[in-house]
Each structure stands twice: as structure tokens, then as C-alpha cells.
């Protein structure tokens, strides 16, 4: 007897992606470049976050033909994004057979209050989080993988670092607290109590946690790995740079050998221009992506 879509099968794929790099791609050609460079998966998109940010308008799920074109081009897993709360976009992506759905703040939210109930799907979901409360709420909704939100499309790693440090600090707090403090901690964090119990049982977040949002260089990727994330998403950082194939390969190498500074130096040497990037202070409040979602 085969059981499909169990939580172990969903979170299991994320476990297999650990130590790897997942790259945003908008064409079959880019997907092949990513695969050849050693990406463990690609994220199929209509526009990369930097372009969404620059062009404005409503950002939606990629056209199914775009997703299928990318799925046909590579043998590594293909992920695709849906708007927060847009369960029909998720149903469509599941019917196409994508390997993971990212319910993402990069796209314009479809529901002002609620995320997708992810338990009803066979395909696994990943969601972004800025802190432990947000991560635990998404897990309780059925997400099987978490990533930092960072600030997408900026080429600026500072928000991803902030989110990873907050998450780590809060997990340490949950692990160290006497049991009677847990309920108040759950209330203060906005985290379901049961999720905190799961964290204590496993000694860590019960699923894989990747870094995302602003990673643009091999050093950024290695820094996030040293801060304790399980793997890396590179959004605009690869295909908005001067030399996508080389940069993609360098980020993959830096992610694997994240503790080997000499190796990171050698893969970084001679790389062309990184994407130019944006200071977070220059982004108007209403254009921040990380504050989307509850």
C-alpha cells in the first residue's frame, strides 16, 4: 500500500534539498543554467522579485505554460509561487504536478487575512517567516518547509540575517524555558503551543529552514549557512547579475563549503558585477514585501 502526501513525504523532500541552492528562473533556458550550475531546485516565476519591485502592479502565479515549459526543461524539482491565500492558484499548480508550492509574499497577497489551508494538498508548501511565531503559524497551517522572508529583490542580505537571528534566538528561548513558561511564550510569540512542544521535542525547528530574500553573493550564502540555515534561495541575485552561470556555480560551491573561507575566496574571485541592490531605508513602507501575511 502506498501513502502519498503524508507529512513525512512532504517534509522529506525538503530534507533532501538541505545544503543546496534553489534559484529563481523565468525561462527554460535559465532553468537549464541553474541545473547545470548545481541548483537543487528551481523556482518558476513570471518575473524575478527585483523586476516585480521595479515594475509594480499586481504580481500573480506564473502562467501554467511558463511553469510547464520549465518543468519540461530540467530534471531537478520545480517549485512555483502562489499569492498568499490564493488556494485556487495552489490547486492549479498541484494539478500541473509542481514539486513544491511557495505561498509567497513576493507576489501580491490575494487574501488580506488568511493563508492557504495547506493540509488539504498532496503537494508540499513552503512559506516565508520573519520570526518563530510566523514560522509556527505556517507550520500549523500545514507548511512542510520554512524560509526567512528577508526583503526580496533588494540584493541586500540584512533582512535575511535579521530574520535568521531572530528565529535562532527565539528557538533558543523555547528550548531553555522552564515548562510552565511555555504557554505565555506561545501567546507572546503568536505561536501555537503544540508547535513549541514539537520544537522542544526535536531540539530545533521541526522542518527545514532555508535563507531567502536578498542573497546576492557567495559570501552572503556562506554567512547564512554559518548562521545555521539549512540551504539557500537566490532570487534576483543570479539572473540580475553580470554573469549568471558563473555566479550560480560560485554560490552553490560557497553553500556546500560554507566554512572554508579559502574556497569561498577562490569561487568569488573574478566574478563580475553583483546585482546593484537597494538600501532597506530607501524602500517606502508600503513597498516592503516582508510585512505581507499574518
Amino acid at each position, binding site marked *: *500500500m*502506498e*501513502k*502519498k*502526501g*503524508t507529512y*513525512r*513525504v512532504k517534509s*522529506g*523532500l525538503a*530534507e*533532501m*534539498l*538541505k*545544503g*543546496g541552492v534553489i534559484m529563481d528562473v523565468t525561462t527554460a533556458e535559465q532553468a537549464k543554467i541553474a*541545473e547545470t*550550475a*548545481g*541548483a*537543487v*531546485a528551481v523556482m518558476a516565476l513570471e518575473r524575478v522579485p527585483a523586476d516585480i519591485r521595479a515594475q509594480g502592479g499586481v504580481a500573480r502565479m506564473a502562467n501554467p505554460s511558463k511553469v510547464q515549459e520549465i518543468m519540461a526543461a530540467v*530534471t*531537478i*524539482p520545480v517549485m512555483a509561487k502562489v499569492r498568499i491565500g490564493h488556494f485556487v492558484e495552489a490547486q492549479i499548480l*498541484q494539478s500541473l*504536478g*509542481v*514539486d*513544491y508550492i511557495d505561498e509567497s509574499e513576493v507576489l501580491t497577497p490575494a487574501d488580506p487575512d488568511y493563508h492557504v489551508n495547506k493540509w488539504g494538498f*498532496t*503537494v*508540499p508548501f513552503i512559506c516565508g517567516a520573519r520570526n518563530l511565531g510566523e514560522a509556527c503559524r505556517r507550520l500549523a497551517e500545514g507548511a512542510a518547509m520554512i524560509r526567512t522572508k528577508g526583503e526580496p529583490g533588494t540584493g541586500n542580505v540584512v533582512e535575511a540575517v535579521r530574520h535568521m537571528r531572530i528565529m535562532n534566538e527565539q528557538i533558543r528561548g523555547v528550548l531553555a524555558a522552564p515548562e510552565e513558561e511555555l504557554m505565555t511564550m506561545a501567546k507572546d510569540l503568536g505561536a501555537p503551543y503544540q508547535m513549541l512542544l514539537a520544537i522542544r521535542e526535536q531540539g530545533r525547528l521541526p522542518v527545514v529552514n532555508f535563507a531567502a530574500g536578498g542573497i546576492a553573493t557567495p559570501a552572503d550564502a556562506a554567512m547564512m549557512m554559518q548562521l545555521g540555515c539549512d540551504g539557500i534561495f537566490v532570487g534576483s541575485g543570479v539572473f540580475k547579475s553580470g554573469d549568471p552561470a558563473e555566479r550560480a556555480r560560485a554560490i*552553490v*560551491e560557497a553553500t*556546500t*563549503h560554507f566554512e572554508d573561507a579559502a574556497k569561498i575566496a577562490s569561487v568569488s574571485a573574478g566574478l563580475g558585477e553583483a546585482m546593484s541592490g537597494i538600501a532597506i531605508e530607501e524602500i517606502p513602507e508600503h513597498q516592503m514585501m516582508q510585512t505581507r501575511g499574518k
Partner: protein
Amino acid sequence: MIVGILALQGAVREHVASLNRLGIESRVVKAEKDLKGLSGLILPGGESTAISLLANEVFLNRLTELAGNGFPMFGTCAGMILLASGIEGRDSGYTGAIEITVARNASGRQVDSFETVLDIEGIGKNVPAVFIRAPYIISHGPNVRPMASHQGWLVMARQENVLVASFHPELTEDTRVHEYFIEMVKETGN
């Protein structure tokens, strides 16, 4: 005894945890130099294309050599692909440590990934097995001993000191498959 776990990418900590449950010390392996002093090597699941790119040719050749010298190795999923002697539709990125040809992603995309239980020859009945975008063994040489199949597909096999599985015993609490590998390591006297 120290068992190495190839840690270029993939489900490394799950194998560490399985070995911990058996009281076996493990060490991560990222380069050829890390292979020194090990009694055996586990090649974990992950993305086989990424792992074979990260393992350079020198490293893959060294693994082929070690397998030929009787060094015990156990590959799960992507690890099995790395140990194979042929991959359908591809002509590099494997070591030939075991005479099998594999088809990648043979169980389909993620929506078709599944868990089940297997009866494994030499290990036992009802062993929980998680298949994630799993490769299947589509042909094998005369020295390969089939150990388990699922719906007609060969999913676990052994050739002397090399053990391979399409599935992920390390994602379950059941340690019987790892115990079997540790017995193989002990038999070599390393």
C-alpha cells in the same frame, strides 16, 4: 568504528541520527581527504545532479577505487545513483561501484512520492520506506543480489561491500536497514 557520511548536499543529519540511535560514531565527508580513518561510507539522499557536480572527478574516482578494494558503502536515493554503473539518459556523474543501471525520478514527481512498508531479504518484514522522487534499478549485473522490490521494481540490492536503496530508511525511526549496513562494515573487519 567511525562511519563517514557524504555531506556535499542532502539528508546528512538524518543518517547521523540513525547511526546515533545505534551508538555508532559518524563524521561528515566533504572532500577526499576526509575519507581517511573511516570504516565505511554512507551516501545520502539529495539531488543527484547537484551532488555529482560538487563531487569532482578525482573524488568520484577515489570512491570507485575504494569500492573495488572492499570498502563498505551504502547509498540511499541520490546516493544509489552515485554508486550505480549506469544512469538512464546520462553518461557521467556515477562511480560504477555496483553493477546496476538506474532510472532517475522513476517514481514520478513529488505529488507521486509515497511511503510504504517493504519485506527486505536479509533484513525483515514491514520495514517502513519513504520514496521521494525515487530512482529505481532497471537492470543489474550477475553479482548483484536483489533484496527488495516494490510493484515489480527493484528498490534495494547489494553487491558484496556495496549496498543501495531507492528509498529513505533514515527518514524513519526504524534502524534495521542501518543495522544491516553496520554488520557489513563489521564483516570487513575495519
